[in-house]
């Protein structure tokens, strides 16, 4: 499909107005749509609400059905904060998640650009090699990676949590495909004006992929934040560990301390929610917003 309309309309400066006719016709559809969305939203939110409510209940009322606890208290929070070094763990987790997000975006952008812009021998095979990394579960590579980390002297450091995650197949494939969908004419125009590939990548393509980059950043951040098995293998002292290890400390062989666990996990969820709220603003109609140069 050509993009003649692109040449005709000054890019991005005029937001198309919704045709009133289309809106009226969709009246009842929208009604049903809203009803379903509300139902879906409730299904999504209710369990999380339950987590918060349980964190406010005392230990002998954990399994009660009341929608709001009779005797809501913050004692689980107090206990959770005293039982594990929550502050240090949150900081560690934040550092690791931010570092991994930044690095994976970088390697993903570079690799994605290569796959989308150039044809070169072995491109197909390399792309397959990237996708196939999904098929290698952590447990398979855990021990050799642990040995490597030990040999590099990185045991008990945050570097060990960051280094194996320098690249991600998801980031690469998503960015490759987003860049592939980028209008070629725009890039051609820039190249003809003498732009180098680096300029094209950083000044032309990326500013218009803000939505994809933001959503990718959110998802990488969350996936790193919730990572458990690898940090578990590496954890030696709780103060140097990440928050998931802290949460797991409430799950003991003598029974799980549900109240404090729910409290700790509510606290651990808040930073992610904050990151989402900040970054999701980028995921709006961002098509060609910033113009061509």
């Amino acid at each position, binding site marked *: 499909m050509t993009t003649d309309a692109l040449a005709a309309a000054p890019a991005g400066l005029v937001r198309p107005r919704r045709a009133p006719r289309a809106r009226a016709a969709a009246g009842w559809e929208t009604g049903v749509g809203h009803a379903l969305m509300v139902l879906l939203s409730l299904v999504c939110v209710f369990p999380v609400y339950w987590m918060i409510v349980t964190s406010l209940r005392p230990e002998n009322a954990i399994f009660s059905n009341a929608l709001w606890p009779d005797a809501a208290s913050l004692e689980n929070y107090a206990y959770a904060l005293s039982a594990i070094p929550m502050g240090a763990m949150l900081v560690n987790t934040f550092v690791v998640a931010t570092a991994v997000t930044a690095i994976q975006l970088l390697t993903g952008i570079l690799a994605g650009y290569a796959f989308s812009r150039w044809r070169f021998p072995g491109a197909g095979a390399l792309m397959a090699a990237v996708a196939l990394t999904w098929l290698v579960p952590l447990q398979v590579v855990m021990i050799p990676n642990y040995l490597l980390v030990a040999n590099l002297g990185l045991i008990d450091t945050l570097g060990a949590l960051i280094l194996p995650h320098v690249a991600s197949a998801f980031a690469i494939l998503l960015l490759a495909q987003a860049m592939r969908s980028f209008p070629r004419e725009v890039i051609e125009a820039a190249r003809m004006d003498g732009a180098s590939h680096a300029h094209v990548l950083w000044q032309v393509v990326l500013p218009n992929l803000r939505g994809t980059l933001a959503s990718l950043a959110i998802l990488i951040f969350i996936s790193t934040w919730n990572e458990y098995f690898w940090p578990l293998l590496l954890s030696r002292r709780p103060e140097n560990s990440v928050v998931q290890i802290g949460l797991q400390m409430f799950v003991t062989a003598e*029974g799980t301390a549900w109240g404090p666990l729910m409290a700790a996990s509510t606290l651990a969820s808040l930073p992610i929610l904050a990151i989402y709220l900040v970054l999701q603003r980028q995921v709006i109609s961002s098509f060609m917003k910033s113009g061509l140069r």
Partner: protein
Amino acid sequence: MPISLTRRAALRLSAAGALALGAAPAFAQTAAIPATVTEPVEITFYNYNLSSAGNGAEATKKMIAEFEAAHPNIKVTGVPVAPQSLMTRIQADLVAGQPVDLSQMGFMGIDFAVQNLGAVALEDIIPAEELDAHFDGMVPNGLELGRLDGKTWGLAYTFSTPVLFYNADLFRAAGLDPDQPPATWAEVKSAGLKIREKTDALPLATGIFGPSAVDWLMQGILRSNGGMTIDESRTKMIFAEPASVEAVEMLRDLADEGIMENLDVTSQLEGMAAGATAMYLQTSAIQGHLIRGAEGNYELRAAPMPAFGDKPVRPNNSGSSLMIHAQDPVKQRAAWELMKFLTSKRGYTIVTSEIGYLPLRPEILDDPEFLGEWVKDHPLIEPNMAQLSKLEPWVPMPGPNYLQIITTTMDAMEQATFGSDDDVAGILADAQARAQRLIP
């Protein structure tokens, strides 16, 4: 039963013989260690109580601090590891060249630890008199638990026995007398039927099945009926033999009558804690959790594991032992000193009152200096202690495929108990053949 000195000597001789036959693992150590620690030394202690937030970690840290105060030359670095990843972690660290000196090892893993993780037998490094002096006062059954092929590889540390917890309120609601808990499986069945009829609670939950349960409760059940999973020499699987089949058929009967359901381990625990289950057969280690859930909700009581008619109950333990992995003699001495402290009267006082496991030195329960007062407020420990003299070792499976042998066995048991095919003998026979192939 007490082990006489001559018997112990005989065990040592046979162990020496086994050594000569090359049955010992590659790490056999025969040099004695220094009598005391004269220079500063640091040892690592891989411990799973440290990995739990709460009492377990606090109590362990307290004991380590007390020990370090009494032994200024020894520094103990606790390495918290979750129990299910302990073996993986020790193995990974050994491969990576990290120092592993002392570990809190689950009994299931003793064989693997001896064969693969460089465990050191106490008899090989500690003078006999010192060992005997320390063992004196410990429950002989307890000591036996950490012994394999005649040597003490693990010194029993935390352990618990299977207990039948029950909800006295639900009993009363079903017309049963909570002061007369079921003592045999037949009584469990009749109580269960009444509970199913009169209440909508789950009559019986157990910790028998599920990957995390491995085979520890099942061993006790089979043994109580005269059967077992593996034979004495640990070379032949025998769980498809009549006595074992009969025990599993009893379980199947309970399931068919709706007294037992095939729920996952955590659901069964939480159902009991919530007061929705009438009887729960599980390790006494979860007692604290149940007590907290019961508070203000229902009356929690405990009884010993049920028997098969007149046959004696033969439960086995769950828990952990302390094992030395260090190869350096000075570290071995330091590790042994820590072991002695943790399993001393003082150590067990803390372990029992603060973490919730059984004291392997029963005398402290009568001694006001230790637990004499505490035991008055914690009556639920009585059924546990009564079973102490009946405890038998949890037999570990041999070879590198030990876990797969257990999984094969228990999957078949679960299938035979809850599955639609009621040919218990056939299912077990098939699994026995498959498990046998995995034995080295």
